[in-house]
């Protein structure tokens, strides 16, 4: 099967061609190699997980994709073209949205305003047009506001729309951050440990949102997660990293039966 072919999953979703490809990425911090020669791809409409023990380089990988880190070697291909070195905000403008492991929200702003910042890519009126505040700018604000309200409904945070984010509990903050990323209508949505620090109920909610997002909006999702059970349930394909190297790549079933993965990561669970 070529990577350019679409296919339909068991649960009836269509997985499209490759949207992003990492080719032989190596990332060093001084003498420390965080990532060594890793290649993998992300296909349109799939949920792609990156797993691995602590310090495996998962978050570094996500930071490479979102432009926060620039790898010393290797190429990032996005939508069929090699991506030149870019600043994080340029990557975001290209349609790659992300959340952070330790939540990066605008604490002083309301939930609604936070989610609206996600729409910056869609708002094209220039500085003068915005300052003068007429016609186009106004229409644009209304349209984007409607889109944002849909997302707020979807993630069930209507009740806290006008609340400053700083006052919200952890679980809701995570959800607001997800809403902001989703508001950008991203081509790829990167989630850095979306369920870290959550209780079982919150994890179930978050899993449901991730699946629904993927199902209803066809959002391509790449996520890092510690909780193996969650990863295996959610994802279509899994990359496994250990000590900065890729040690496995495939469907959850394939990965589960991969001896290198079992040794490195699931060793304890193996009998």
């Amino acid at each position, binding site marked *: 099967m070529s990577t350019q072919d679409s296919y339909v999953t068991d649960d009836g979703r269509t997985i499209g061609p490759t949207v992003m490809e990492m080719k032989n990425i190596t990332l060093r911090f001084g003498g420390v190699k965080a990532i060594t020669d890793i290649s993998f791809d992300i296909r349109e409409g799939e949920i792609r997980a990156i797993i691995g023990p602590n310090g495996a380089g998962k978050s570094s990988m996500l930071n490479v994709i979102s432009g926060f880190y620039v790898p010393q070697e290797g190429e990032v291909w996005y939508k069929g073209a090699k991506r030149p070195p870019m600043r994080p*905000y340029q990557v975001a403008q290209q349609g790659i949205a992300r959340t952070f492991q330790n939540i990066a929200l605008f604490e002083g702003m309301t939930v609604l305003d936070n989610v609206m910042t996600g729409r910056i890519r869609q708002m094209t009126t220039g*500085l003068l047009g915005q300052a003068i*505040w007429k016609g186009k700018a106004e229409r644009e604000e209304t349209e984007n506001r409607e889109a944002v309200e849909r997302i707020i409904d979807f993630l069930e945070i209507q009740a806290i729309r006008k609340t400053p984010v700083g006052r919200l509990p952890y679980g809701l903050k995570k959800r607001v951050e997800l809403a902001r990323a989703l508001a950008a209508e991203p081509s790829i949505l990167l989630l850095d440990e979306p369920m870290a620090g959550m209780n079982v109920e919150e994890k179930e909610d978050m899993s449901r949102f991730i699946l629904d997002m993927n199902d209803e909006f066809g959002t391509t999702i790449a996520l890092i997660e510690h909780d193996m059970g969650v990863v295996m349930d959610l994802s279509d394909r899994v990359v496994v990293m250990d000590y900065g190297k890729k040690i496995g790549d495939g469907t959850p079933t394939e990965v589960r039966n991969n001896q290198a993965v079992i040794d490195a990561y699931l060793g304890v669970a193996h009998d």
Partner: protein
Amino acid sequence: MLEQIVFASEVFANGLMAGVLYALVALGFVLIYKASGIFNFAQGVMALFAAMTLVGIQNGQIPFAHLINAIFGTHIHHFGWNVPSFAALILTVGVMILLAWAVQKFVFRHLVGQEPIILFMATIGLAYFLEGFADLMWNSEIKTLTFCLPGELCLPQGMNLAIDEAAYNAWGVGFFIDNLDISAAIVAIVLVVALVAFSQYTKQGRAMRAVADDHQAALSVGISLNFIWVLVWSLAGFVALVAGIMWGAKSGVQFSLSLIALKALPVLMLGGFTSIPGAIVGGLIIGVGEKMFEYCFGIGQCFGGIINLGGATENWFAYVLALVFLVFRPQGLFGEKIIERV
């Protein structure tokens, strides 16, 4: 008795107007501090530089005339034309935007992530550089500033006769208030409303608040930090220009103008470093406070003159008040409370 009350209210009104001017300078500080965490010591000098540039362009002065004359032995000083105020204003705004860009490009871009004290030192350097640069560019003579918009709409000078007359008719005592102060108050109100509207209801305003809140998150939604910082410094430059025009029209464009920045410090301590309304309220309190204190205790006009300090309290009152605030409410009236979580 009536005369005394009217005189006291005159002092009060004058204090309000002076407060508006303090607030204008403080506003520039708040803008930059909020968005980038930089305490911009050069804000006062920026007001001076903006006012000098405006007057220089208006009068058709040749920039760097002294320097050119010294090098080439020429004797040039003026182009020989006058530029209308409005055109000069537009040009000066352009210069301030250029300055904002240069400050970002050559100074603060290289200091991203440094300690606040280092950024602060950089702004002190900037203040001295800008003061020397202004001197070199426009020379150091004291200049008068007259500012007229198209249609003979000039910044008024002198006392407001209408109010004086109305007061005289009502109470038999005149009421002195400066026309320029009234205009300054109106301009300041318009400016503050415009700034608040801009930051609350536009894309760039939202981006500005976002950058002020969290750099990493701002980057992740596609906001260019550099662009926002240039924007903020431009806005601060514009506010400095307005403050420079008002102060310049009041007391002439001269180098002591840069010292008004010092009066903005107590204003900020009162209002809080991160609050636009705080800058306004702080400015008004300081303005009214120092005038009324001088009236009551400086020259002993209240409570039968029990306390008479012999005048000149205006020089220190603001700082003492700021000190009191530092002890009892360090975040100011409207500032964000600093909470360190353990």
